[in-house]
């Protein structure tokens, strides 16, 4: 039996052919580990079939009442097969899981490497936690392809082939019937499952995502609903969606167990057909009585190896969806091309940035996010950039950090064009706190050290102190070794922003960029964090993006609108901002 899925995997609409095969190719280097597992699995299924066939032979032969010696070998075989079956199954499971986990570990690294140049602008996954979680699930779906599709399919093939060969040797026409029925069942059943899964899932997915949206409305929007007297209506809609899901599932129930029923029907046909052929051949004297029972039992038990196939096909249907998404991801070209020969960049001296006529578009035929932007970040100066949401502030940071390419205009850093440097060098010079900054599920210390792995404890203390995070850290029972939750959920919004700030300060780049460091904080905390930032960034080239200009004093304050600088605030007196506390105005 081959995998019928691959034949149907190529749909005219799919731009990349055979994503499942491509996924498989990524896992193939691990065949040395997987082959023994497949062999053990096939061996275990063969042992189960052989146990019954041998026992049938033993009993029928014994009924002819020969001397004990002529059945003693069969007795030993029956006992050995009985023991071997479980042992082989155990081996198969262990080897299979070990091999598959190795293969997935390797594949994870491969996907990670493909993702590196795409983060954060090259794929939509980085804009949504759900998409990212799904991506990780897709990678893990590779496990199912091997463990729940390929290995059971291989075992089923082996048993089917073995049974057919033995039956053919005993009675060619019985072998032909058995082989044919096994083949048809083995092809038909998975195809049936794949066809059915495609039909039902679409409508169900639509209602399910509707239910998810409605639930979010019922919970997150409960207060809005209650204030508007609309809770009853919303609950009624949810009730209707729930009823629709149940109706679809009830309808689908008629077809879900069709595949297993089909296997059983083929088993019935094979058992009756082979027995009938064997009986006729026995009556004609062409087949010994012993072989008569062996054939009947063989027909009966060989179909048991096909029972995992419906489940395998269901897994294959899911894996194909994952494989297609992964193929799309692996084929995505990086948004930024690296220079062939990167220019050297010295980052130990103060650097300034000069931007002229910068034009950036997120899509080749989309609107320009930055359109003719010019600005200069003089060394040692604080530049504040204001602007409405969507005015292109974060795009500017992404362009400076070489996450997105620029179409025209120039960014000059240290006297050379930014795109002449390697991306990693550019980010050594220009980095800081981005809007999507992530708090890793590890210790505070490790989260900070990320910015500068060779930092000493004194450096860490200093960065934390300047971000006014030190008191909080020292108040924790595990202090620097406190484990932070999933994306910093164990800390308050203010602490999270301060941690990200401390990390950016620790990195100590020649050009520090801070993108909305007070985003999501309540006004009091925002003012406190902002004033700390002003104090901590004294004397370095800093670009601070914010939408709350209240009380800010900077070397220059610019407003960005529609992708270009719209207004430049008069430059305050030098040193003015240091003397006045900007927190309260």
């Amino acid at each position, binding site marked *: 039996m081959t995998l019928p899925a691959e034949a149907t995997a190529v749909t005219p609409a799919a731009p990349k052919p055979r994503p499942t095969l491509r996924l498989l190719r990524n896992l193939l280097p691990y065949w040395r580990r997987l082959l023994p597992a497949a062999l053990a699995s096939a061996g275990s299924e063969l042992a189960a079939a052989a146990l019954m066939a041998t026992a049938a032979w033993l009993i029928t032969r014994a009924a002819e009442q020969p001397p004990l010696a002529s*059945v003693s070998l069969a007795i030993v075989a029956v006992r050995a097969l009985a023991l071997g079956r479980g042992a082989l199954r155990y081996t198969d499971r*262990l080897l299979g899981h070990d091999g598959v986990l190795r293969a997935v570990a390797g594949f994870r690294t491969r996907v990670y490497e493909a993702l590196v140049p795409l983060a954060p602008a090259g794929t939509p996954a980085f804009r949504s936690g759900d998409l990212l979680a799904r991506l990780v699930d897709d990678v893990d779906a590779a496990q199912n392809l091997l463990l729940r599709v390929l290995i059971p399919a291989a075992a089923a093939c082996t048993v089917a082939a073995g049974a057919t060969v033995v039956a053919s040797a005993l009675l060619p026409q019985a072998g032909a019937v058995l082989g044919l029925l096994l083949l048809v069942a083995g092809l038909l059943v998975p195809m049936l499952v794949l066809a059915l899964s495609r039909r039902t899932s679409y409508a169900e997915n639509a209602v399910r995502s*509707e239910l998810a949206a409605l639930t979010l409305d019922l919970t997150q929007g409960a207060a809005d609903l209650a204030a508007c007297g609309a809770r009853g209506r919303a609950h009624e809609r949810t009730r209707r969606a729930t009823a629709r899901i149940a109706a679809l599932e009830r309808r689908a*129930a008629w077809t879900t167990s069709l595949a297993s*029923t089909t296997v059983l029907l083929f088993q019935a046909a094979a058992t009756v057909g082979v027995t009938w052929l064997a009986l006729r051949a026995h009556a004609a004297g062409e087949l010994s*009585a012993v072989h008569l029972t062996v054939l009947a039992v063989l027909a009966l038990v060989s179909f048991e190896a096909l029972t995992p196939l419906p489940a395998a096909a269901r897994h294959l249907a899911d894996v194909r969806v994952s494989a297609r998404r992964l193929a799309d991801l692996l084929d995505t070209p990086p948004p930024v091309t690296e220079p062939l020969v990167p220019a050297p960049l010295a980052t130990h001296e103060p650097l300034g940035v000069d931007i002229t006529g910068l034009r950036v578009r997120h899509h080749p035929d989309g609107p320009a996010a930055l359109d003719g932007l010019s600005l200069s970040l003089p060394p040692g100066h604080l530049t504040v950039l204001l602007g409405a949401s969507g005015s292109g502030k974060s795009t500017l940071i992404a362009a400076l950090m070489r996450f997105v390419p620029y179409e025209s205009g120039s960014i000059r850093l240290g006297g050379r064009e930014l795109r002449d440097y390697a991306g990693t060098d550019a980010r050594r010079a220009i980095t800081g706190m981005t809007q999507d900054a992530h708090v890793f599920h590890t210790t505070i210390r490790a989260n900070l050290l990320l910015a500068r792995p060779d930092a000493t404890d004194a450096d860490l203390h200093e960065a934390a102190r300047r971000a006014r995070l030190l008191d909080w850290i020292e108040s924790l029972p595990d202090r620097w070794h406190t484990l932070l939750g999933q994306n910093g959920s164990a800390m308050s919004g203010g602490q999270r922003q301060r941690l990200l700030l401390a990390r950016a300060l620790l990195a100590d780049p020649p050009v520090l960029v801070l993108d909305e460091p007070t985003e999501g904080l309540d006004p009091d905390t925002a003012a406190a964090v902002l004033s700390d930032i002003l104090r901590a960034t004294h004397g370095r080239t800093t670009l601070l993006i914010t*939408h709350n200009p209240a009380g800010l004093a900077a070397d220059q304050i610019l407003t960005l609108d529609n992708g270009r600088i719209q207004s430049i605030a008069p430059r305050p007196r030098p040193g003015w901002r240091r003397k006045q506390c900007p927190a309260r105005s």
Partner: protein
Amino acid sequence: MKPVERRLTRELPVLRRHMTYSSALALLAAGLVVTRATLLATVLADGFAGRQFRSAPLVALAAVMTLSALLTWARGVLAQRTAAGTKRALRERITARLHDTGPLRLTARRHGETVTLLTRGLDALDAYVVGYLPTMTAAAVVPLTVVAWLAWTDWASALIVVVTLPLIPVFGALVGAHTARRTARQWQLLSRLGGHFLDVVAGLPTLRAFGRERHQAEVVGEMADAHRRATMRTLRVAFLSSFVLETVATLSVALVAVPVGLRLLGGELDLRTALVVLFLAPEAYLPLRAAGAAFHDSAEGIAVAEQVFGVLDEAADSEDPPGLAGPADPAEGGGRGVPAVRAGCRAPAPAARSALLRLEGVTVQYPNRASPALRDVSLSVRPGEHIALVGPSGAGKSTLLALLLAFTAPTSGRITVGGTDLADLDPDAWRSQVAWVPQRPHLFAATVADNIRLARPEASDAEVRRAARAAFADLFVEELPRAYETPLGEHGAGLSAGQRQRIALARAFLKDAPVLLLDEPTAHLDPRSEAAVTRATVRLMRGKTSIVVAHRTSLLPYADRIVTVESGSVAPAAQAPPALTMPSARPEGLMAP
């Protein structure tokens, strides 16, 4: 059965019915198994004896096997439909529970888990209902039937089966208990290692920002390897149980077949009986083995059921505001699960347009909090008056608004509307006279127009447009791909914070309620959005009794009176807070109280 399972079957009649039907069908299936074995043995024994070929037994065998296949299908259909019914019943109970929970309490926390539970989470019950329950009933019914038939056919073989059969559950329980202990210890480590990849991928932009992406590539490999080693340590033990069960089952077949063969040699047994024994013996063990496998699959379903009951049972008090659950009546000692709003007399809501709003010595004490959120607050608001509430975050400003919305009730003291106690009013009737613009309004998974229509679903398109225009929302709405028909919400068009505020203001314009409650509507906006939202808000406040939480916002100048809330207490009214200065000039024509 675990307590959760007992509760599931107790509370869901559909499951009880399913158990009854599936027991009956399992009995029928056992009968068919026995018949099949007997028929096949008869056919083969007849052939062996060289008797005349008869087609009748063979046709009967075909019929029995076909019937058995159809029975499998029927059991599958029944189980799947039961699963659908179970999930529907539980979904409805969860949403009903959400309906009865105070809105503040729902809004206050994150609901990713509830959403997941209601959608994909409950699907884990499929394995329990479709896989585990029928297997368990079969495990109770089939072995008994098979052994009974075996005993009637050949008691010696039946004895071997009877002795070895209990070994499966006994070994299963022994090994299971051992592995459960081992795996429980590993679980935390496994989930942490397993979650590492997602964490690193989610943090990839940050890793690149600090040039650590190359280093992490190795870490990804190392962590995946550590995950594999930890998993394999667990699995080596976990798979032992199935190894033991399968070996017991297959070894028993050998234990039955070999003596039968020896007795045949001695002529003590006929071939037909021997074959019946051979065919039937594995069938006695099969359901128990299947139950062992299904037991593992069911664990997730049971965990989900526990989660569901956790949501359903959540005590109404925990750490949340009393919420809609009504006042914790001091006479009753303010116990758990207080019924929604005081039952009994429901006074008709007085017309709020001309009613005096009064808070009289109101204290709100949230359970499990050291100090009250509001302490002995008295305040009266004249019809048409504009009050600005100022004070540091957490001072109790939002609690004050929640009180006026009847989202929460005073622990002591009372709120009156034109002299009637708010607690005596039907909350929905009262809220129909109040418009509320929260700090972060929720956008519903519906069109822009329906989002604006939230309080008045019957409003015409023209009215919706008029409200949007008044809220300065018309311009950006018309730029959306499908203007007022553009879907919003999680998967809809993304709107900026300022745009969301203006949708909420349009909602309030359309509702046109005499009392207006605004919670820092401009707090998170950029200057330009703030200006637009301020203009719209000021326009909305015209002629309405308005209470605005306006700390640090541009709305302050438009208030008639500024009330400072500080750690639960209200400073003497009409006194401007020291940190803030009132602008001398107020735009004319906007206020007209």
